[in-house]
């Protein structure tokens, strides 16, 4: 089913501009990542979120500092929207010790414990059980936190998804399941891998509210996430959101995109969440002449600073290679 149309509180101009700014920050950051990848400053697997920004930005807007986030390997946007500073994210991709994971994680493994940002998991669906456990801890400790768990629609084919959906519903765990349906699991279209392509219907089988949301509309996402979080915090158990979106770029930097045609990509680009939302804000008088350009310039400056931070960073001494395999504290019986 689609999200019930409860009236949203009138969003302030500041809030709406914030949503736009966050999407622009992610877009500009990742466009620079492409250049830096071509320049070989970034290596390994890198998965871009371009086109899907409204999802992370909308959901993060509904979360509080005490909430937890579990993301996937396509998580630059989630980290930025959660408030992880751009400098350490970029430094991580440069493999520098100033990076979020001291250069041990790279693009796919961004972490920030201080912001309850639990990564950065490169096994499809692998983060979902962990999100269930974070929520279990909150529940057992009587804390009000909600755990937002992001995963793609490809994860819906994994056992870990089904096992955790069942567990979360059975135990009324405070989990917000955020399924980012960008239509392709790497190169496999949903209809080629799922007998039932209605993802909300699948989720409903686990006895939890399941709403389908336009993931290209940041306000629709933010509104659905806000209502879902209210439901969860009130003790209503988990909620599943299917966020319909599209990845404008290839799956990773190695993807020749044989599985989809250019016309399809072009059609989706017409729904680009950023210009569409900027136009809506302008029409509502929330964005004035030159405001978008100013936001973009700010984002560019932030990215410049992040790149400079990463370039000025240092490498972990090789002597420290085996640090952080086990914790650096003695355990006495």
């Amino acid at each position, binding site marked *: 089913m689609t999200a019930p149309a409860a009236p949203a509180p009138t969003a302030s101009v500041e809030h709406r501009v914030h949503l736009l700014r966050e999407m622009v920050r992610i877009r500009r950051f990742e466009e620079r990542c492409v250049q830096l990848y071509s320049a070989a400053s970034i290596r390994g697997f890198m998965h871009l979120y371009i086109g899907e920004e409204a999802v992370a930005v909308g959901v993060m807007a509904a979360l509080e500092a005490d909430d937890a986030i579990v993301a996937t390997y396509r998580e630059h946007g989630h980290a930025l929207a959660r408030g992880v500073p751009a400098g350490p994210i970029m430094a991580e991709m440069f493999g520098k010790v100033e990076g979020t994971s001291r250069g041990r994680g790279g693009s796919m493994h961004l972490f920030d414990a201080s912001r309850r940002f639990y990564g950065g998991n490169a096994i499809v669906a692998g983060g979902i059980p962990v999100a269930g456990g974070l*929520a279990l801890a909150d529940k057992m400790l009587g804390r009000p936190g909600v755990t937002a768990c992001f995963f793609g629609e490809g994860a819906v084919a994994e056992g870990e998804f089904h096992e955790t959906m069942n567990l979360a519903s059975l135990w009324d765990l405070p989990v917000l399941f955020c399924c980012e349906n960008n239509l392709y699991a790497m190169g496999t279209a949903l209809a080629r891998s799922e007998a039932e392509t209605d993802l909300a219907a699948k989720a409903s089988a686990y006895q939890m509210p399941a709403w389908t949301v336009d993931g290209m509309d940041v306000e629709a996402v933010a509104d659905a996430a806000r209502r879902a979080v209210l439901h969860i915090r009130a003790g209503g158990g988990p909620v599943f959101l299917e966020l319909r979106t599209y990845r404008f770029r290839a799956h990773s930097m190695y993807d020749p995109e044989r599985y989809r045609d250019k016309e399809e990509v072009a059609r989706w680009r017409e729904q680009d969440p950023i210009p569409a939302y900027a136009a809506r804000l302008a029409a509502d008088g929330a964005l004035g002449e030159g405001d978008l350009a100013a936001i973009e310039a700010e984002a560019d400056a932030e990215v410049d600073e992040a790149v400079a931070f990463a370039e000025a960073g240092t490498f972990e001494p090789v002597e420290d290679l085996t640090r952080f395999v086990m914790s650096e504290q003695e355990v006495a019986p």
Partner: protein
Amino acid sequence: MKTTYREALREAMRDAMRRDDRVFLMGEDVGAYGGCFAVSLGLLEEFGPDRIRDTPLSESAFVGAGIGAALGGMRPIVEVMTVNFSLLALDQILNGAATLLHMSGGQLNVPVVIRMTTGAGRQLAAQHSHSLEGWYAHIPGLRVVAPATLEDARGMLWTALEDPDPVLVFEHGTLYNLEGELADDAGPVDLDRAAVRRAGDDLTIVTYGGTLGTALAAADGLEAEGISAEVIDLRTLRPLDWPTVLESVARTHRAVVVDEGWRTGSLSAEVAATVTEEAFYDLDAPVARVCSAEVPIPYARHLEEAALPQVPDVVAAAQHVVGASGG
């Protein structure tokens, strides 16, 4: 007091739950059923269903939930019924628990304890008889322990729960009914050192877990022949306590490794290789190994017995290394 291995494990859990509100147990049939091997029998009545938590048959979800709960500030004990089922949760253990600390640059330690039954010897056939603790000991980021005595069954759990990193506890299925005397004040024990369970001069038998009894029985038999065998119980399979092993071999000059795991690519191979690398000039004979036959463990008693390390196999290996050096 007289007790059993099973009761010692249960008492360790009861003690941990009383000491620390963050400790809870979850797994398949740990509550109403009392545990597949009756280890948690009675705990549900004492601690309630929130802390003695029955799970669906979803190994990956509840092991992952244990990891997540540990990240969230709890101290979970996750019981996976047997090591065979732990394979369904291998993604969470290997890609998750073992990697998170390193992959996050030291930010996220995972204080979870995962208990499971291991080993053969009960005519349970190929899918319920694996000894895969050596596999797990291959993985950086995990601590792997194998209590073989009542003291360790009683004492390892609390230390494991205090450990900031994931600890896997392997309980050999044939040990649950092991009976003996345990000191009334028995408490936590270290998870760092191997133990010399029997002192000897002529050779060192290195073993752990379910085959400790086999090794000790072999040592008794060897004594009757005038061969004095030292028996080392590794206790912790990762990280291994090499000084204790190497010090012993330096005195006895001969080593036999007894391991219920398969020989190829095994923990026994690791011990033999390291002894050869580190103590080559102390050795009077090549290191010998007694392992399980390279077959899926069969059901029929005579076939299963033939597949597993038995006392005569250990005795023969010991005689061989002693004879090989003219001792």
